[in-house]
């Protein structure tokens, strides 16, 4: 019983991390309709950014998150302004391909810049834990989980209840109409993408605290992020949190009861099922 409780907690905390990873992807996809295959690469860059801050400037990785997010915001803004804005009106495949190319480029640049060495962000408390009855709560994951809650809820408030959030959604749905109603889309697109990338960067910083970093972690993180954002539902940030938690728990339980090699069968199998039964995700609105 203790084991089950512990595994459930592991799953929930893992789910929090998952949610943060997928948040930016869901925003960029759901709102800008850009399927960002380079998302994982941005998580990777964010992780390296945090690592450098920690290693050379001794900035605590949690305190460094805003800096990482800001740096990645700038990267995202410039990329959208300078590159992605060039093709946002082209058919869907093109964004897909462009971001794929971008992923390749970023990965290689990362290897050139940071080498293929494995890195970890290892502050003294990264291995600490709280004891809660028989259950152990790792501090770093708890921090990541709290971060996920705050960011998700913040995103939800922002998109649904602010002027800018509304404009972002409107632009995604009807570019011409948005321009006719006073939206400056270049800036708005860049801002949205930048927010998505900043979120990816923050996720990367947290990821580096619990896992190892190398230039090639991106691709699998992108795949996971897709699963999470679909399971939850794209048009609602709270859905991403639900998707993350759901996936974390499913994977942990599968590992416990069926075997570790079946975790992927379960997570992606459930993704397919969810899509077939409820194409808009668990929390998505049905049209």
């Amino acid at each position: 019983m203790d084991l089950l409780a512990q595994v459930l907690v592991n799953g929930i905390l893992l789910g929090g991390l998952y949610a943060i990873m997928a948040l930016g992807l869901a925003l960029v996809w759901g709102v800008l309709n850009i399927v960002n295959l380079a998302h994982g690469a941005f998580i990777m860059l964010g992780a390296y950014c945090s690592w450098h801050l920690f290693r050379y400037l001794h900035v605590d990785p949690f305190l460094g998150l805003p800096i990482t997010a800001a740096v990645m915001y700038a990267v995202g803004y410039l990329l959208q302004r300078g590159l992605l804005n060039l093709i946002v009106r082209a058919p869907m495949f093109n964004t897909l391909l462009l971001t794929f190319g971008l992923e390749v480029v970023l990965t290689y640049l990362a290897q050139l810049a940071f080498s293929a060495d494995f890195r970890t962000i290892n502050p003294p408390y990264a291995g600490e834990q709280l004891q809660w009855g028989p259950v152990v709560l790792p501090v770093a994951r708890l921090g990541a989980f709290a971060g996920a809650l705050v960011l998700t809820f913040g995103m939800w408030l922002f998109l649904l209840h602010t002027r800018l959030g509304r404009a972002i959604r409107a632009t995604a749905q009807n570019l011409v109409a948005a321009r006719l109603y006073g939206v400056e889309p270049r800036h708005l697109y860049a801002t949205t993408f930048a927010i998505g990338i900043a979120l990816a960067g923050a996720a990367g910083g947290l990821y580096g605290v619990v896992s190892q970093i190398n230039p090639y972690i991106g691709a699998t993180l992108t795949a996971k992020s897709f699963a999470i954002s679909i399971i939850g539902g794209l048009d609602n940030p709270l859905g991403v949190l639900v998707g993350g938690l759901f996936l974390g728990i499913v994977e942990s339980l599968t590992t416990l009861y069926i075997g570790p090699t079946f975790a992927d069968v379960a997570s992606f199998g459930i993704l397919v099922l969810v899509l077939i039964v409820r194409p808009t995700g668990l929390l998505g609105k049905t049209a």
Partner: protein
Amino acid sequence: QDVLLGASVQLTGPLANTGRYYRDAYQLAVDRINAAGGVKVGGQPHKLALKIYDNQSDVNLSVRQYTQLVSQDKVNLLLGPFASNFALADSAVSEKYKIPMVQGGGASDEIFSRGFKYVFGTLAPASDYFGSTVEMMKALKPPPKSVALLYADDSFDVSVAKGTRPLLKNAGLTPAMDERYSSNTSDFSSLLSQIKAKNVDAVLVAGHETEILNFVRQAKSLAVAPKLYSFTVGVPSEDFRKALGKDADYAFGMTAWLPHPALKDRWFGDADQFAKEYKAKYGYDPDYHAASGAADVAALAQAMEDAGSLEPQKVRDALARIKFDSLYGPVAFGANGQINLPQVVVQVQGGQLAEVFDGKAFVTQPKFPMPAWNAR
């Protein structure tokens, strides 16, 4: 006239981290041999030249590149790639064109059970990786009672697990956990919680370095501290210790090679000098991958001299009979083409790699049992 050696290794992509050992070792050995005047074949000194392609960690590309090396670049002899599945696929090219390949990157049993005549391997057999560790466990006081065996699902690690089970059985240990996990798993918290719940004394993990790093970090954050854990990869490499810092302490591992001055070598003097030269040139410590790679070049050089010819067929026959001492240890291939070297148990102690058990006796006292994480 130059002798051209060819290889395709992982310089980019997910396997680049280990692939570079091979490129660097091949280059260092070739330079060294040339500096010493080259190899003498039939009385004539020959310089060595090296042609290396980057296979971008893509098996299909590596097969094409080996074909290109053989048929277009007309290399005389082949050196191997890193990783068992690459060696498996690429050895088919050497077999097809009947050009010998000496490879130090693949140890999986499948490579050598296909009856191929042109592939030779300088990594110790996968099935024996935990052999010396299990021997050591018997000698520890008090000996661990329960064991967990975790292994990734690729061919090398499955071979390791397959070889380890009978060893454990002979030592009177039935594994409390015997779990196969997916390669590239990044979350071990469920498995770790089970280890803790079952109160396992010793944990043996056969996997990849990325997974081992995550395993150790997550063990710490979940406060899981078995009396002993041992890993097939990572521990001997400098990268591992750097990435984990103090948390690397107490980790056991194994290596078929350590930079010992006792390992004499015709070209480098001894293994220690090789390691120094390597570090000076590339800025990081070599591990057994690098030593194995350097030994591959030495083996080809030796075989050419023994054969007195550059003809692939003759070099192959010489390789089959070869017997010489290298910085990597005594090199001689079995009937299946694979070398057999005993594994030495190593442990990280105070940030340094220490040789603990040589297969028969303790060399240094192991730090055992591992204390709880908050008691370090």
